[in-house]
C-alpha cells in the first residue's frame, strides 16, 4: 500500500464540504478512486459515466501524466489528480 496525494476540483470538494487535497492509502489508481468514492460516495456519479469510464470532460492525472485507465500501480508520494477538462468554451 502506498500513501498517495489526491486532488479533486473545487466544485466537487464544495459539494461534499471537504478539502480539495487529501491523502489515501492504495496500491493502484483504481484503488485510489475506490478510496475517494468510499470517503465521498457523492462524487462517483460526477467522475465516472454510466459505463464506469471517466466522464468525457473529466481528466485523471497520475503525477504529470494524463491517464484514462485505472490499472497503474502507485508508489508512496505519487499524486492522483482529478481535473475539470478545459472544454466547453
Amino acid at each position, binding site marked *: 500500500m502506498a500513501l498517495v496525494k489526491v486532488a479533486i476540483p473545487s466544485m466537487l470538494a464544495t*459539494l461534499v464540504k471537504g478539502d480539495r487535497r487529501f491523502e489515501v492509502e492504495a496500491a493502484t489508481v483504481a484503488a485510489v478512486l475506490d478510496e475517494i468514492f468510499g470517503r465521498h460516495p*457523492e462524487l462517483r456519479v*460526477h467522475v465516472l459515466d*454510466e459505463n464506469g469510464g471517466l*466522464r468525457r*470532460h473529466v481528466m485523471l492525472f497520475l503525477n504529470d501524466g494524463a491517464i484514462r485507465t485505472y490499472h497503474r500501480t502507485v508508489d508512496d508520494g505519487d499524486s492522483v489528480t482529478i481535473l475539470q477538462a478545459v*472544454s466547453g468554451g
Partner: protein
Amino acid sequence: MAVVLAIGTMKGAWVARSHDRSSWDLSGPYLRGWEVTTFGRAPGGDYLLATGSSWYGAAIHRSPDLEDWQQVVDGPAYHADAGRKLERIWTLTGVGERLYAGVAEAGLFTSDDDATTWQPVDGLNEHPTREHWQPGAGGLALHRLLTDPADSSRMWAAISAVGVLATTDGGTTWELRDSGVTPVIPSDQPGHCVHCIVADPDDADAIWRQDHRGVYRTADGGRSWEQIQNGVPGSGFGFPIARDPATGHLFIVPLESDEYRLPVDGRLMVYRSANGGDTWEESGKGLPADRVYTGVLRGAMDVDGTDPGGIYFGTTGGEVWASADTAESWQRLPVTFPRVLSVKVLDA
C-alpha cells in the same frame, strides 16, 4: 402573504423570501457554480433541487432548511446497458408519497422512499416508439409531469421533441396524445416539440400547452387539442405556460418565432388569458417598454396559488420579475442573476 421563491440559474441557486410579495430578502448562492435546473419537495418535507453540469453530470440535492444542501447518493441513473446518459434533471414532481424525476436524455425515474433511492419507469423509458424519438434544440428531455390529484394512476409527461405521453395505469403503459397539434416535422413518427404543459388541478383533463407550433388546449386529457393563440403576437412560439389556480388566469411569454426566439419587437411581454385561452391580452405595467432581447425558459415561470395571483418569472438575461396582482403590474427583484433556468414557489 409570505412567499419563498427559489431561483435556479446557470451558476447556482438563490432563495428570495417576502412577507408581502413586494419587498424581498435574498440568500445564496447555493450549489455555487452548478446549473440548478429545477426544485421540488420530498414527501417528508425536505426541499429538493437538481444540479447539472456539462462536466460532471446531474444529481439531486436535499435540504431541511434551504441552507444546508446534501447530495442524494443513489439518485436517478441509467443502467450501462440502457445506452443513455443522464444529462439533466428537469422536473421533480410529487404524487402523494411518491416522487418522479423527469430527465434528459428523456426518461422518468421514481422514488418511494422520500427521494433516497430512485428506479427507472421502464414503461416510459422503454416506450415502443423510443427509437424514433428526436431531441429538440434543448436536448431530448422529459421536462414536465402532470398528475391527476383525484387519481394518481393518471399522468401526462411532456417530452421535447416527442410530444405528450399519457398513462392511466400508474406508468406501466403510455400513449402519445398529440392529435390536433402541428408536428415540427410532418412524419408518421413522434415529432411534436411540446415546450410546457399545465393543468387545472380541479379537472386534470383540462391541459394547456405551449408548443413549438403555438398555444393549445385540451379538455379531454390530450386526446384532442385546439390551437388558442388568438391575439398573441408573433408566431405562437414560446416556452413557459403557467396557470394561476386561484383565478384560472393563464400566462405565456410570446417570442418572435422558432428561428429567432427573441421577444416580439424587442419587448418583454407576458400575455394573459382570463377565459381559459379564448382570448389573450398583454399583461399590465412595469415590464420594460422596449429594447429587451432576453427570453424566458420553460421552467422559469411559476405561480403562488393565491388570489390575487402571484406570478414570477426569470429571464435568460438574469432578471426576475414578480407580480402580486395577477399580472396587473410587475416589479423587478433588485438583482441580476446568471441565466435563469428555473423559478419555483416553494412555500406560499
